[in-house]
């Protein structure tokens, strides 16, 4: 250690320095005996919060016994990554359209939530799925309506 001004200064620096080192070691020693904060993932899983953003899914409505999507196409227009494809058909002329197929390519979704916000029927929401590992790229293309039926 360089002593800049005199022996007394140097000795004081050595003493305060050594004390700081010992105090630092005490902090880490205390931590060895505190419980760990990590979770062993495959053995123990955490539940997600309510607002967690998984991929989009359709909401189940009792009056249609299915979804409320009218295939208006607003979510398709507002998605920044052009992820959504919707197809619908009309039951009778002059009536509302009814969404039949709704595909999202989740490999490109940035979870921004613009589609959920803009839907006039409030038909979609975020799911809580996070364990999504695919073996092929096309497994990331999800059909939401089919998922809704499978869940029912």
């Amino acid at each position: 250690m360089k002593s800049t001004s005199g022996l007394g200064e140097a000795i004081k620096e050595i003493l305060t320095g050594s004390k700081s080192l010992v105090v630092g070691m005490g902090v880490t020693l205390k931590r060895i005996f505190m419980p760990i904060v990590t979770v062993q993932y495959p053995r123990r899983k955490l539940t997600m919060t309510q607002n967690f953003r998984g991929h989009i899914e359709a909401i189940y409505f009792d009056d249609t016994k299915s979804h409320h999507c009218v295939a208006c196409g607003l979510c398709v227009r507002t998605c920044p990554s052009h992820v959504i494809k919707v197809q619908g058909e009309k039951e009778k002329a002059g009536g509302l359209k009814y969404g039949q197929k709704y595909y999202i390519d989740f490999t490109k979704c940035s979870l921004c939530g613009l589609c959920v916000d803009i839907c006039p029927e409030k038909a979609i929401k975020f799911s809580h799925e996070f364990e999504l590992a695919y073996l092929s790229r096309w497994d990331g293309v999800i059909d939401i309506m089919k998922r809704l039926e499978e869940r029912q």
Partner: protein
Amino acid sequence: MLNIKTIDDTSINERVYQLNLGPQHPSTHGVLHLLLKLDGEVVISADPIVGYSHRGHEKMAENRIWEQFLPNTSRIDYLSGLIYNQGYCMAVEKMCGIEVPERAEYIRVITSELNRISSHLLGIMAFVMDIGAFTPFLYGWDDREHVLDILERVTGSRLTYCYNRFGGVRNDIDQEFCDGTRRFIDRLRGRFKDYHNLITENIIFIKRTRGVGIIPEETALEFGVTGPSLRGSGVAYDVRKNEPYSVYPGFKFEIPVRKEGDVMARYQVRMAEMEQSMKIIEQALDGLPQGPIRARVPRFIDPPAGDCYFAFESARGAVGYYIVSDGTRIPYRIKVRTPSFSNLFVLTRILPGNFIADTIATLGSIDVVVPEIDR
């Protein structure tokens, strides 16, 4: 340090060799390439080469409508995602003249300051890890985990947020959020004592950081350095105080300033800024008004033709959005002025004459996020 006469590139000196602190390196925070010319262990010249993570955000802005650029803003600087989000929304609101309800402004301030705390925690602790102490990094991440949990409960994301919308925010906050935030603030204040004992008072850390990497005040102003790097050199400039925006004029907080300009000063400025952010959050939580969280805004906005510049303070310095609109739904040009760009290039002036170990310490203390430089 040592007195080094500048050597220009054409001079041939057989003692000087070139070392790439390459794009792949454990301690440049991102893909930064620093071309060093060294004489033994002393740096003769330092040349940052940027552009390795250029993703074309500003070009993407010319092909998307105004709302669709929101996810991009978070990813420019992923550590201050909420702050950039807020800045973009405020820039567009300034241009269109949209009034934001007061509750939304308060929520924006609270979440932005929480984001600032988490960014500072990561920046400081990564810098300490570069110096060699591996454990404070993990202690900092433990605290950061709590912030991310709080923010996830409200926004749904942990790192790249898309929470602000034109005219307000997306979700409302509830009493559980306020309680959790207050608990977190108390916890973090208790943890500062541990950081103080483990890092700040440590004689090895003091020896490594005092008097190292000094940025003189004139150099900082010349290069356009902003943020904690500028405030560590003695200039008291913070966009939240000098060009106030949102509801910041209503809060009492100070700007920590240090005169020395060395690595230790910047570290202390960041630690003190976390304390000030906590004060702002507490005042905002106490004064949170009731009301709507989003103004009525058309689904796809049509801003008037014109341009607008809006500056705000992220964790790294002053950010500016320069927005040019030609009256349609697609922006004509969005330019983002990022602080890391100017902060990085000050290294060309201050590194020559220092050792390699000081290079790493200085680079860590400037707290650069490389994707922000390249956008």
